[in-house]
Each structure stands twice: as C-alpha cells, then as structure tokens.
C-alpha cells in the first residue's frame, strides 16, 4: 500500500473519529447503553449517570479521552445487565463549556429533567465548585475525577462530593517532596512561579509555597507570574522568567495552556537555562508532545498507566482502551481516573445493594475500592480517595511510541503522606457549609 493510500485511510479514520465524537456527544452516549437490553424481563429502573465535561476551552484536550473512557466502563457494566445486574446505565452527557454558570445550569437541567443520580466530571475547578452547590442542594452524588482544587473537598465540603483525583495539596506536596530533595542537592536558592490565573492554579501554587517553606526554607520565591486561561503567546513570560535568573521554575499549568507553554518554552530554550521540576506532564502531554518534549525534565502526573502495569484492573482497562481506540492509543491520566470513578460507583452500589443515592453515599464513606491504581481508601474527613501522585523524569521508553517516566527514578508519593491539612483543620474549614 502506498503512502498516499495510507494517508487517505488515516484521513478517513480521522473523520470517523470526529463523527464518532459527534455521536458520543450529541446523540448522548446512551447509544452504547442500548446493548444490555438482552435481559428485558429483569431490567429494573435504569440508572441515569450525568457526565459534565467541556468540549471547548483549555481542558478540552484532556477531556477527549475521558469522554471515551466513561462509555467504555459503562458498556462493560451494562453487558452484565447494569448496576446490581438489573439497572442499565444511561449516560447523560452535557458540555459545561468550562464556564461555571453554564456548568451550574446544565447540572440543574440534568438533575431535574433527566433525573441523574450521579454527576461525574468537570475539568475546571471553578466549574466543579459551582456544580457542587447544585449537587449538594439536590442531594445528588458528585464524583470529581479531574478538577482537584482542595476547596472542593475542604472549604466547600459537601457529603455528596467524592474526589477520585489527588487534590491540589497532595499534588503540590508530592512535588515538594521531589523538589526539596533537588533544592538541597543542587543548593538552589531562588525560584519563579508561573501559574494559570484561576482556582486550580492559585490553589496549587499556594499548596506548593506553603509546603516548600517547611521542607526547604532556603529556596525563596522571587517572582510570581499569572496568566489568563487560554494564553496563546508565552514569549514575554518566558523571557521574563529567564531575566529573573531563578535556580528553578515552578509551574501550575494544565490543559491546552500546558501544551502551548511547554512547546514555546522548549523552542526558546527555557529548560536549558532553568530547570522546570514538577510541572504537570500527564500521559496526554507525553503522547501529544512526543517529538518536542525535552527529555530529562521532571514532570508530575496524576494517574499514569505505566506506574500500575501490575494491577489487574489497569491491565484490563489498557487492553479495552487499545482494542477500542487503536493500538497506540494508551489511556491517559484523565481516562483512567474517570474509569475508576465509574467502577468506584459500581462498587459502592454493590456494597449498598441499592442504587438509592443516600445508601450509595453512605457506602462510599470511608470505603476501600478496587481501582486501576490498586486498592484505595476514602479519607474519612474529606472524602478524598487516598491516591498517589507521580513525579518522574521524561524518558524514551523502548516499549511505547512515546516517552514515559523513567521507571527507576520515578517517585510515587502516597496520598496519605502528603494530604494536608490535618483532619481537625479540615473539620474547621468544612464548618462553612451547614
């Protein structure tokens, strides 16, 4: 087959993918849930699962795989007849447009209209906070699997909200573990911070600076740079960083902006001059920037598949994902976490032996769940899943068509080692909500 033919085929495939997206997103992913109708006689009330994720905005790039991952998990459960073997899952997908007011409106719409019992999703933490108000009021289970501001489970605590992603404090804590070692080793004295000017960026930065002062007080922050979400030209920021001549750079950048920043900073040689440890480099970046990502820089991940290759659930999921979406389409962090969220929900329902929300919420409290990341337990005081964060060096692997973290230097920081603040302080923060 000639190159042209192959290219055409790829083009056609590409079109198919977008058409499939169209089906997924517009005609409600419920199409997949039609499969379980085999057990017609036994089918009880369907379980409406709300999914709120953006299809535009800075997070869209991450969300693509999450939107693929959820129907996959749902189809698998539905093949067994649904939750408890008799409640087939119907997905109700809505686009939150990365806007808090749109998210709140869509949440109300699917709760009141479609009677969803659980809402999974949101990319932006600001949207998550807006949605939490609605789910709390309507007593609907809310599972956050990407938005990870610590406010979601602490300041704005709601008993109906469960967090499946390491929160911003845990992630910053993990970076501090790695960075403080490097600070001591390299005798670093100064750093510059750059962050996305919104809930998560601010929260991540705060977590990092407060913890680093304790762990490595000799490192001083000499400049803070905040940019608006969706910035397209980082040139002036990058030159400003280089002009400050810091010993290292801390970044709180995620989504599309992370890709733009890494690309432009790489082209401008920033990483040759200033080490950039602990910026978010998920499997998405590893795959998409496989050509341009500087090797050897230290990244932070939330749920990289290659860290848990021995877990049976992870093995199963990788196999499913690749079978469905193509051989080199490995699931990224966001897909895995959403997969975990759906499976966590199933386990809670099994434990409660009911799909009633109050029972499920109770079953999730302090539950130990089987996940892609092994057996993980919910933290009692904040409903935060005890999941690790991963800090590692970007490294070309012989096993994959894209770089991963170098296995022998990767640090896996357990959630319970870095979750802050202590439970009694979380209780104080929680008091705000009645």
């Amino acid at each position: 087959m000639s190159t042209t033919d192959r290219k055409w085929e790829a083009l056609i495939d590409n079109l198919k993918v977008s058409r499939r997206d169209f089906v997924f997103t517009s005609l409600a992913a419920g199409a997949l849930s039609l499969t379980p109708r085999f057990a017609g006689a036994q089918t009880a009330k369907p379980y409406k699962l709300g999914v709120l994720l953006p299809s535009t905005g800075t997070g869209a790039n991450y969300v693509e795989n999450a939107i693929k991952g959820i129907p996959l998990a749902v189809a698998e459960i539905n093949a067994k007849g649904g939750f408890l073997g008799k409640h087939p899952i119907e997905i109700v997908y809505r686009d939150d447009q990365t806007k808090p007011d749109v998210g709140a409106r869509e949440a109300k719409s699917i709760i009141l209209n479609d009677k969803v019992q659980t809402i999974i999703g949101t990319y932006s933490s600001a949207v998550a906070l807006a949605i939490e108000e609605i789910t709390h009021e309507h007593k609907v289970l809310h599972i956050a699997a990407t938005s990870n501001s610590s406010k979601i489970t602490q300041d704005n605590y709601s008993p109906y909200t469960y967090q499946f992603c390491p929160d911003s404090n845990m992630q910053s804590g993990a970076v501090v573990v790695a960075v403080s070692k490097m600070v001591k080793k390299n005798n670093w004295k100064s750093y510059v911070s750059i962050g996305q000017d919104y809930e998560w960026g601010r929260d991540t930065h705060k977590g990092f600076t407060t913890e680093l002062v304790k762990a490595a007080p000799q490192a001083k922050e000499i400049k803070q740079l905040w940019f608006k979400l969706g910035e397209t030209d980082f040139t002036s920021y990058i030159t400003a960083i280089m002009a400050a001549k810091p010993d290292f750079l801390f970044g709180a950048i995620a989504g599309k902006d992370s890709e733009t920043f890494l690309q432009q900073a790489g082209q401008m040689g920033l990483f040759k001059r200033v080490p950039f440890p602990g910026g978010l480099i998920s499997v998405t970046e590893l795959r998409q920037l496989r050509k341009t990502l500087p090797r050897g820089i230290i990244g932070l991940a939330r749920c990289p598949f290659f860290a848990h290759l021995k877990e049976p659930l992870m093995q199963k999921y990788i196999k499913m994902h690749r079978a469905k979406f193509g051989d080199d389409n490995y699931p990224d962090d966001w897909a895995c976490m959403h997969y975990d969220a759906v499976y966590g929900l199933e386990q809670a329902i099994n434990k409660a032996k009911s799909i009633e929300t109050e029972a499920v919420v109770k079953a999730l409290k302090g539950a130990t769940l089987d996940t892609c990341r092994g057996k993980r337990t919910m933290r009692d005081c904040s409903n935060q899943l005890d999941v690790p964060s991963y800090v590692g060096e970007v490294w070309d692997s012989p096993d994959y068509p894209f770089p991963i973290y170098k296995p022998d230097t990767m640090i896996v920081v357990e959630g319970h080692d870095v979750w802050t603040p202590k439970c009694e302080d979380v209780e104080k923060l929680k008091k705000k909500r009645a």
Partner: protein
Amino acid sequence: MNADDNRGRSRLYAKYGLSGPAAVVLLFFFLLVPLLPGEFWTIVSTEILILGLFAMSFNLLYGYMGQISFGHAAFFGLGAYATAMVFTRFKTVGGEISTPDFLLSLLAGPPAAALGALIVGFFCVRLTGIYFAMLSLAFGELLFYIVFSWYSFTKGDDGIQGLLPPLFFQDAVHYYYLTLAIVIAALLVMWRITESPFGYIMRTLRDNQRRAAFLGINVRLHMLMNFVIAGAFAGLAGALWGPFSRSVSPGLLGWQESGIAVFMALIGGAGTFVGPLLGSVIYTLLQAVVTMFTTYWPLTIGTVILLIVLFVPGGVLGLIEQRIKSRRGQAANAGHEAASGTGKR
C-alpha cells in the same frame, strides 16, 4: 395572536402598540409557569425573567437611545458581585442567611452597577455609533480583568460560591415568584420611564441628536442618565442571578455575556418594549431544549441568529407588528410610535 378579535385587546394595542397584548400574554404565561410539571421549567423561566430584564435594560440604550453597548454585561456582573459580597458578609458560620438580610443583599446590586455605569457612561456618552460600541466593550473588558485579577477582593476566576438563599426561597417556585414580582415591578418602572418626557427625549436622541441639541436638550447629560438607569436595571438582574445560580464568576462581566443581551434584543425585536423579553423566552427556551439533544448549541443559535438577521429584521415582535400594520394599512399613532423604529442610530 389575533389582535382584532377582542375589543379590549384592540384598545390595548391602540394604546401600547403590540407591547400591550404581548405583555398581557407573557404575563399570563409567566404566572402559570409553575403549574407546568417539573421544577425544571420553573427554573428555566426564572432564567428567562432574569436575562429578559437584562436584555430589556440593554434595550434602553439600544432601542430607545440608539446606541449599541457591547459592555453591558459589566453592569450585570457588577450587580451580581455586589450582591454576592454583601450576601457572603451577612451569612452566618453555618452558611445560612435570614430573609431580610437576603433581600437587603439584593438591593446592593443596582446601586453598585449604577455607580459603575456612571463612571463608564461619563466617557461613553461622548461618543456615538461604532465608537460608543467599542468604548463600552473596552470598559467592559477592563472591568472583567479587574474582577478577574483582583484575587484578594473578588476571588478572581474562582468566583464566589455558597449563595444559597434562605430556606423559603430555596424552593424554585418561591424564588420564581420573587423574581417575577421584582421583574414586573422593574418593567413597570421602565415603562414609565420610556413613556415619560425623558423617554421621548431618548427617542429624539436616537433619531436625530443634532436636532435634540438645537432644541436645547443637554444631550450628554440625558444620555448619561439613561446609561445609569440601564446600568442599574442590569445590576438588578445581576443581583437576582447570583442567588439563583448559587454562585457568581467573572465570566458574567465578559463580552460574550454582553452578546447575549444583544442577541435577545434583536431576536425579540429591539424596536418594541417587551421585544427583548420575548427574545429571552426564545433564546433561553431554545437553549434549554437544544442542549438536551446536542452539544452543538453554538451552531444552532448561530444559525438562528443568521436567519433572523437575514430574514426577520426587526425581530419576531417587530415582524408581527409590521404584518398587523400592513394589514390594517393604518398609520402609526403617537401611542405606539415608540414601537415603530428598529433602533435608528
């Protein structure tokens, strides 16, 4: 809707133009909404009312004064933030707020927005046409970036959450009737203003500024007054928005939000008094229904706007009115002259 059937309605039409019958129909519709099955439609209707008030406040500038503002959402947002901040101050540790405190916090919206409009308007009224549009857009964006960047005061992009009204108003129907009462009161005041000598000065300014100046009218002062009034009503709509949505965020001040008011006014009919409210009914209902089936909402609404601009200039209400007028073949009388223009510059 046939205005000829009924003498009462006919008189209403004679006096108020199509806005009369349309207002009566809309009022009936709005009073009966909570009887519809499902809390959802009550919530959608609340949104219709709030955004409708916002669009009508925009139309004070556009339909009556003939200037298009692309920064009107700034005042909507200022009202929302003022209410949210007062609300948060009043809240107890347990997150509750008493009914008087809640109503008081709603009152914070309009003055805050009016103050903002006074400052912005002072500069904007010096310009007209495209320059007015651009300056209002620039001020709107400036206010957006201030709210966005002033993290310690406004919480930046996080927004402010936890705006849960008192228990009684947590009920969607109760909040709906509260909104309806406030919006009706606001519309009555607005109607009085537009039908007052001041309102006719506005129409003069719309149709011919120079002539107005020759008549001895202080053009800038009157434009500024109207700008502040429009800002205050936008602020009132914003004040209602926060506790309705339970949270506020800086996006409420942005140019895309301003665009929504423009959409609504032009869909419904900017040349009529209640046109923007009808525009809100169409836009918001369409959004609630369309997003149930597809995430391609922008494509849908974009196509609708395109069709309206190309084939229904003057908006839905404007079109109906034109039809009636041409059928009757009668000249517009003074009573509904207000409803005749399509917002001449």
